[in-house]
């Protein structure tokens, strides 16, 4: 497959006897030697693992309310290495979100989204949101008690948005209640629509980064070649990551909660860690305020490069502002997660 990257790089490097390396070669600014600049390649690696393990899981998973939990149980406890494949899938999504957040923090602190890189930020932030949607639809499929009530609560949250909310709720649930149709819809989203969307977005994000180039950093004058230096560094990080993941899956094999019970809410309905902070947020604030502040926060997040530009024009010390904002948001999330653990 001719990737768009090769198409783009070709004109500069066209010529007879060129190897494929010349097509991906690019002079990167030397500041990219600093290891946090490989943080974006980690989610990319994890995305690959998620696709592979996800494909394997579909060979056993049955998306029906009667069979879903049973099939996950069979994968976890019956199928040869099933626990490992499911564990790898689960750990990959946890780590993908974690490293996406690290990557966001790195870009935010170094203000890598400044012109002409706004599109890099906007496309990347959509990747983050779609990944969250993958996380939600994924843990719904397990169909244990946390899945069932998570589905109920999250779809209800969508239903509370004005105008578009109620029809969207009906469309997503395929009816008025969470049912087998809902599970099938979430399964379709998780295994077909969202992965294709996410794959496209990730590819788009990488292409945009290659096209737009990297943000200027003062005193970063010399060059750091993409191949072999940067690819080697990313490769080393990916190998280290794989070793870490295999260890994590073996030490913490995947578990399965009690099966979904539509008659009784699970005693502990805490969602996965990455939804823990917004979950506490909506518990602490009155409904509409919590939802609107979450939506507003997400909007500000996507549009941050433009806010930064407007404030920088008014001579705000943006490096300092970003440092304070990042510290406050991370501290707030940690506090909310801690409160969730206490309850």
């Amino acid at each position, binding site marked *: 497959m001719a990737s768009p990257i090769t198409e783009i790089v070709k004109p500069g490097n066209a010529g007879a006897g060129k190897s494929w390396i010349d097509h991906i070669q690019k002079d990167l600014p030397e500041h990219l030697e600093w290891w946090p600049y490989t943080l974006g390649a980690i989610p990319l690696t994890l995305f690959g693992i998620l696709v592979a393990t996800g494909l394997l899981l579909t060979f056993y998973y049955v998306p029906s309310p009667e069979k879903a939990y049973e099939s996950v149980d069979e994968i976890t406890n019956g199928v040869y290495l099933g626990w490992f494949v499911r564990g790898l899938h689960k750990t990959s999504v946890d780590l993908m979100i974690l490293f996406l957040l690290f990557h966001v923090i790195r870009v935010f602190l170094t203000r890598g989204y400044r012109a002409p890189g706004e599109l890099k930020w906007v496309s990347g932030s959509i990747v983050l949101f779609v990944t969250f949607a993958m996380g939600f639809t994924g843990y719904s499929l397990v169909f244990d008690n946390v899945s069932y*009530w998570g589905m*109920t*609560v999250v779809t*209800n*949250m969508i239903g*509370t948005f004005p105008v578009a909310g109620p*029809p969207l709720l*009906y*469309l997503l649930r*395929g*009816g*008025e*209640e969470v049912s087998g*149709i809902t599970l099938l819809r979430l399964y379709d989203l998780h295994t077909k629509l969202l992965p294709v969307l996410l794959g496209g977005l990730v590819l788009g994000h990488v292409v945009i980064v290659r096209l737009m180039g990297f943000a200027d950093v003062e005193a970063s004058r010399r060059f750091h070649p993409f191949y072999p230096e940067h690819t080697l560094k990313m490769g080393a990080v990916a190998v280290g990551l794989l070793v870490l993941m295999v260890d994590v899956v073996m030490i913490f094999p995947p578990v399965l909660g009690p099966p979904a019970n*539509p*008659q*009784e*809410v*699970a*005693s502990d*309905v805490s969602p996965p860690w990455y939804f823990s902070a917004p979950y506490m947020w*909506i*518990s602490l*604030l*009155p*409904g*509409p305020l*919590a939802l609107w502040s979450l939506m507003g926060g997400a909007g500000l997040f996507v549009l941050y490069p433009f806010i930064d530009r407007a404030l920088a024009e008014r001579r705000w010390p943006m490096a300092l502002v970003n440092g304070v904002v990042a510290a406050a948001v991370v501290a707030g999330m940690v506090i909310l997660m801690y409160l969730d653990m206490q309850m």
Partner: protein
Amino acid sequence: MGFGLLFGIGTLGFRFLQFLVPNRKKRQAEAVLIGAESRIPLNEAVPMDLGGQKIVVLRTAEGIAAFSRRCTDLGCLVSWSKERELFVCPCHQGTFDKTGLNIAGPPPRPLDRLPIVKRGDQLYVNIQSA
């Protein structure tokens, strides 16, 4: 031609979207027998599932009342806490008093109350069944 093409694809897309929306079932009022009043102990609430609708019937000194168990916040199911004399939602700690009024936590309105009809010794709850 461009406009025609867009219009064609647009209407087709709209039809596909309609395909994804299942038919709404007509709802009709129905009185469902829930048994004799004496079946429900004083100051206790009995949860019931009437064809998918989860309700709770509470008997207090003031009388008997039926509520939908669906929390008005985000749709989890409330349970009666006998000690606290409150309905509690485990999802986001919303609480309702014995009249169904939302008194703490995120719920924006009281629990939905269902009318109870007494015929002889037997109690009937009016629900909207699908």
